[in-house]
């Protein structure tokens, strides 16, 4: 249990998707104009990461990894399908996003109308594929670790986009030098936020 909390907190603050790895920057910069929309996108990312990372973990553990196909029979012990990782992961992500979209549309139309346009965009958000690839690189021991890593990364991304959106709403009234307005100042603020987040480095639970 302690280990799970540790992974969760670490992936929110220390290995933050945006400030430490810059994943999902495209939608982070494009959608962070208002707080409302960025909160919506943030929830969608938490949701999709929490689902796709465990599924890709199972895929990695039982189909793609070296010797993972051994459950089919001893003659498969040497099969290593890891070169198929990218294409399988992205296919799972695209399919899951589509599925999640349909399920939400059916069961919660209000949530659907607020997330609506963002869900399809998430398929090409690097944070999602990045989450799965980092999961693969870190060799988690079991599926609950993968779940807590997925959810933690999502929450970290959510925090980052909600924070920058709030700052951008305020900064509209400030006197920023004209060539820096919009994109330039957003980059610099993100950098400063990243430096602030670095103070969490080294925390162990």
């Amino acid at each position: 249990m302690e280990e799970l909390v540790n992974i969760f907190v670490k992936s929110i603050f220390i290995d933050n998707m945006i400030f430490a790895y810059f994943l999902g920057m495209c939608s982070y910069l494009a959608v962070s104009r208002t707080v409302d929309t960025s909160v919506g996108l943030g929830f969608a990312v938490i949701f999709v990461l929490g689902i796709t990372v465990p599924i890709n973990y199972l895929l990695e553990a039982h189909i793609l990894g070296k010797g993972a196909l051994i459950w089919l029979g001893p003659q498969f012990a040497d099969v290593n399908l890891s070169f198929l990782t990218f294409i399988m992961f992205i296919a799972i992500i695209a399919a899951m996003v589509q599925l999640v979209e349909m399920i939400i549309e059916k069961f919660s139309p209000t949530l659907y109308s607020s997330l609506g346009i963002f869900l399809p965009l998430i398929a090409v958000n690097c944070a999602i594929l990045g989450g799965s690839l980092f999961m693969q690189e870190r060799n988690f021991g079991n599926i609950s670790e993968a779940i807590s890593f997925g959810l933690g990364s999502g929450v970290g991304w959510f925090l980052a986009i909600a924070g920058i959106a709030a700052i951008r709403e305020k900064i509209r009234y400030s006197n920023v030098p004209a060539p820096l307005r919009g994109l330039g100042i957003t980059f610099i603020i993100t950098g400063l936020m990243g430096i602030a987040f670095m103070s969490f480095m080294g925390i162990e639970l």
Partner: protein
Amino acid sequence: MSDTNNMPLKEPLFSAKNKKLLTDPLGKENPINVQVLGICSVLAITVQLKPSLVMALSVLVVMGTANVVISLLRNTIPPRIRIIVQLTVIASLVILVDQVLRAFLYDVSRQLSVFVGLIITNCIIMGRLEAFAMKSKPWPSFLDGIGNAVGYGWVLLAVAFFRELFGSGTLMGYQVVPNIFYEYGYVNNGLMILPPMALITIGIIIWVQRSRDKSLIDIS
């Protein structure tokens, strides 16, 4: 003859229009500074010049090829499933690049770690496929892909140049800051190696570019 078969004969290979496709993404339409696409990978791997160079070349290969393939297939792809088709084409090309890197440049490939895989979701590639290759002939699409990849590449290399020079005093792994500087108390700026400085460096590049070209200034 084979090259010109796909296009009207009256248009030369490097007409003014085609040249524009190649040069616009370098400045006015730069994918990173102006269109804000494909930022993710720019920032994480620019600590040193060498991985950045490899990354820029990988993107160049993937983008040029993907644009041509999608452009050749553009009339046969059903619009409803085009995203999946595009992702499949890109993912297959990225797997090829990844395997080549692992075979011939293993240490750089370890350094780039997951970021080779993340070329798949690099928004520049998807963006150009969607916006250009889906409705253009193969040759202009190829030029467009190369132009955008070079536009991406120069920003990548510029950021990496400053970060490596000030962060570790080296370029491409060779020391360029002379030892005598260190003897008189010059110290490498450790902050440049940390991730947040990549963002600030890009912010400054955007600042310089926009103060030179006023038409790019964001009014909103």
